């Protein structure tokens, strides 16, 4: 993508029918650190990489509880993500106040998408620079959605966003067909393994990742460090063998993405 004369305003179309400002906003999502979501019929797991500004600071929160039955993981401009999480919490709680019933996640993501669309059609606004992985429940079970700065939303069995998410996506693509019937424990294990893919070489420690889960009979909550470490310990022994096999498979997709170059341009406000 290069600078051109149609990319100054979000309200200017290019001759080929593109809104460049919206596409640039989607680039911002790719700069944030990875967030991963997967779902079975009854559970949704959201996991992310803990990245800190410097060794002195603590890491930024990327996963938020919206309600007992909805959670969201963000990647990109975390400030925008925080504001949208607050909006989601507000919608959820207002619905519950009027109807004494949890807001179906499918309806929440539509509200969210409509809110994002507004920012793509006003000259005095800019699109939100954050991608949201929304996991939640409604009458038909567990769902995972991805909300994009463009105002689009998609439903997924599993997805990853942020920097080096391609590695996680490759892993998930191999395994997603079994997720629907996965047990809760297997789902968590797959999420942590997907996080490991994005670290590409760095040893996986429980302090490096945050994992959250929600389910039909399980309100949204974070897994604590010990639980995560226990899961890591179960597969750390086979980690070395797997790494060798995957090293060759990763060389091709990694080169195609500009993600490696993108890392040097990360603005301080993007985590």
């Amino acid at each position, binding site marked *: 993508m290069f600078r051109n004369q149609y990319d100054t305003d979000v309200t200017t179309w290019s001759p080929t029918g593109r809104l460049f400002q919206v596409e640039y906003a989607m680039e911002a999502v790719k700069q944030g650190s990875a967030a991963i979501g997967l779902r079975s019929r009854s559970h949704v797991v959201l996991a992310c990489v803990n990245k800190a500004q410097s060794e002195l600071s603590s890491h930024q929160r990327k996963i938020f509880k919206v309600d007992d039955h909805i959670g969201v993981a963000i990647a990109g401009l975390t400030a925008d993500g925080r504001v949208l999480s607050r909006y989601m919490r507000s919608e959820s709680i207002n619905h519950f106040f*009027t*109807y*004494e*019933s949890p807001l179906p996640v*499918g*309806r929440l993501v539509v509200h969210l998408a409509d809110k994002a669309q507004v920012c793509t059609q006003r000259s005095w606004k800019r699109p939100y620079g954050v991608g949201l992985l929304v996991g939640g429940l*409604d*009458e*038909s079970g567990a769902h995972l959605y991805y909300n994009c700065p463009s105002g689009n939303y998609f439903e997924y069995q599993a997805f990853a966003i942020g920097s080096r998410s391609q590695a996680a996506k490759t892993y998930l693509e191999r395994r997603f067909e079994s997720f629907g019937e996965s047990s809760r424990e297997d789902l968590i294990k797959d999420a942590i393994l997907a996080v490991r893919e994005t670290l590409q070489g760095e040893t996986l420690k429980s302090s490096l990742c945050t994992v959250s889960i929600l389910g039909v009979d399980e309100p949204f909550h974070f897994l604590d460090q010990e639980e995560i470490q226990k899961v890591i310990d179960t597969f750390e022994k086979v980690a070395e063998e797997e790494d060798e096999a995957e090293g060759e498979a990763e060389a091709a997709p990694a080169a195609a993405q500009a993600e490696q170059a993108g890392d040097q341009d990360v603005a301080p406000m993007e985590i």
Partner: protein
Amino acid sequence: MTFTIPIDNGDAVKNAEADSQRTLYPYVTGTSIVAIKYKDGVLMASDMGGSYGSTLRYKNIERIKAIGKHSLLGASGEISDFQEILRYLDELILNDNMWDDGNSLGPKEVHNYLTRVMYNRRNKFNPLWNTLVLGGVKKGKSYLGMVSMIGVSFEDNHVATGFGNHLARPILRDEWHADLSFEDGVKLLEKCMRVLLYRDRSAINKFQIAKITEEGVTISQPYSLTTFWEFQAFHNPTAGAQGSW
């Protein structure tokens, strides 16, 4: 309450607008609703009368209506306010259906929505002059609740409004039990409605019984109950009275 605004030339102008927006008293009213949970869902009964003060003016008013796929709403009190509530609910259900996403508002959600509406109006001193009964079945679970014009709201196995509270509920407390069959449920409701017919002067002998189950709503055609007036006390009502009261 009227507001007076003094004007420069000394004459005061009554701000009539403040009054015309508020509910002061009801005009055309419906009497009791009685409802019970039974084995397959909820049964609700009402008569078809609309009183204009002490005149029984309208005799074909349906005071029980189906709401969406899962609920029944019965109302006593001001009939025009009931019609207004039906319009609100119509819009609510319409918007719910437009989502077309496999989720739908069940009786619990409708009951809570109505509670919010009634309480909100009460706070503005402009109530919808009704006591509402909301019954329904969703995913096998029966639901029965009531909201009054001041926003008091609760759920129970059997509810009644107006005179029904005083005359029907004692019968229900004694004779209701879980898993009533349809026939027993109807018999129990008819017993309550008969007592109301004898004793409530705004009741008429023309009833509808509505049933809601997982399959849907059925509202019966209007029918009458048999009554018996040959009790000794009715033959010579003043026999025991000596002198003035």
